[in-house]
């Protein structure tokens, strides 16, 4: 169910003083024929700028649905979602696309890269589309920062799983979003590669990027500054964490 559409950005006044993400009493119901599945049943949470929040829950708990709603990939059935001061639930697709492209980067579990482009070309791509003249130089810089600079000329299938995900992170942050969303982005990685990706995320967070990651892996959760537990479509518990080194 999509709310009313508008072509005008709905920036909330004094947005910079508000939490960067506000999820307020959100419901999400999937309907297929006569069957209804309630994925979120009044979920509420906020994320402040600069936080590293991990949402932990079992399969089917609603955590990916929640992330997709924050990323503007899914509508709410009811409730309010504000990201960077924009009310996503009352935005049309064009405005959501603008919010995503300017404010949000996303990384998924797999298939984040174009197979026939090199790592550097993949990272440069979003910047070239945005008209940035320094796309190539910045792509190399980002790959260096994420520890995969030596692999800049390699195609995805020549990279390990952890290297691919770090290239994917570089691609997602190429146009300098304030918020990076990750959906089980270490789900296919072994422990060593998981740690390399988590180190990269921690370094981004230390420089001020806001991170929201969903996972069922407590190794990932331990690196967060706050852990949210989701169960049956409700955020049940919020606990401070310490951004531990693995």
């Amino acid at each position, binding site marked *: 169910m999509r709310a009313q559409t508008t072509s005008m950005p709905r920036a909330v006044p004094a947005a910079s003083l508000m939490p960067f993400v506000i999820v307020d009493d959100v419901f999400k119901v999937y309907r297929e024929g006569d069957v209804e599945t309630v994925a979120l049943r009044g979920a509420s949470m906020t994320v402040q700028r600069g936080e590293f929040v991990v949402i932990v829950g079992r399969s089917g708990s609603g955590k990916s649905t929640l992330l*997709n709603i924050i990323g503007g*990939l*899914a509508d709410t059935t009811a409730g309010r979602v504000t990201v960077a001061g924009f009310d996503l639930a009352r935005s049309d*697709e*064009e405005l*959501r*696309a603008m919010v*995503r*492209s300017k404010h949000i*980067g*996303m*990384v*998924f579990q797999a*298939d*984040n*890269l*174009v*197979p*026939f482009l090199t790592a550097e*070309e*993949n990272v440069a*791509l*979003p910047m*070239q*589309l945005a*008209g940035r003249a320094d796309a190539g130089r910045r792509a190399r810089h980002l790959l260096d920062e994420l520890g995969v600079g030596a692999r800049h000329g390699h*195609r995805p*299938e020549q990279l390990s799983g952890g290297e691919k995900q770090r290239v994917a992170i570089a*691609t*997602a942050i190429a146009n300098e979003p304030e918020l990076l969303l990750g959906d089980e982005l270490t789900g296919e990685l072994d422990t060593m590669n998981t740690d390399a990706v988590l180190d990269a995320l921690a370094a981004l967070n230390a420089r001020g990027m806001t991170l929201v990651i969903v996972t069922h892996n407590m190794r990932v959760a331990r690196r967060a500054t706050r852990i949210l537990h989701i169960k049956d479509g409700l955020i049940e518990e919020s606990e401070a964490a310490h951004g531990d080194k693995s």
Partner: protein
Amino acid sequence: MATRADEMTPPPDAQAGRAVLAATGLRKRYGRGDGAVDALRGVDLEIRGGEIVAVMGPSGCGKTTLLHVLGGIEPADAGEISIDGTVVSRDERRLAGLHRRTVTFVFQGFGLIPSLSARENVEFPLVAAGVPAGERHRSSLAALADVGLVEWQHHLPEEMSGGQRQRVAIARALVPNPRLILADEPTGNLDVATGEEVLDLLITSARRRRCALVMVTHDPDAGARADRILSLRDGVLVNHTEDLT
């Protein structure tokens, strides 16, 4: 075999028999010593302009390796590849440059960037080709219209079904007006009905644009709609079925 009305007339390039891509003596080995696997063991082939070719064979026979080598994704250990009569396989940069202008891809796993909208995913091959932004925008919208997805231009791949994502990938493959599309199991991640629709779109789009299409496939229906089937066994082409039309 290739019985649909819009597939009956071979395009002029095919009638003229000009090769858009030719390969001789392609060899590719993975690993070393006792564990080495010879994925390609001396493959010769020629793809004529506008023809639809299916590459078939059992799993592990080297089909995907062949497609990757032809498309410059992986280098061959030996052999030569020519595009439009120009040898490109001795110079990786030249290979990449020519491929970008002439050869495009469709993958089983779609190969879309999740943080880019459908239109941006279609648009990016034109960035590498130096096409101005306004023209890129128009061309990518036209390509999305060709695959019936213009209303999805702002959506991210994650919001789309598998069939829609593969249509976006097809639009991306078509947008630079290539001479050859290389497709690796283009229906492999789709249900049967969606796979048929996507296959139909891919073949009719290639025919309409007189673009050659080489499909690696397990799907007998895809083979039946090709002009020619290349059968690969243990890294060697064992049978060329010529001119099924």
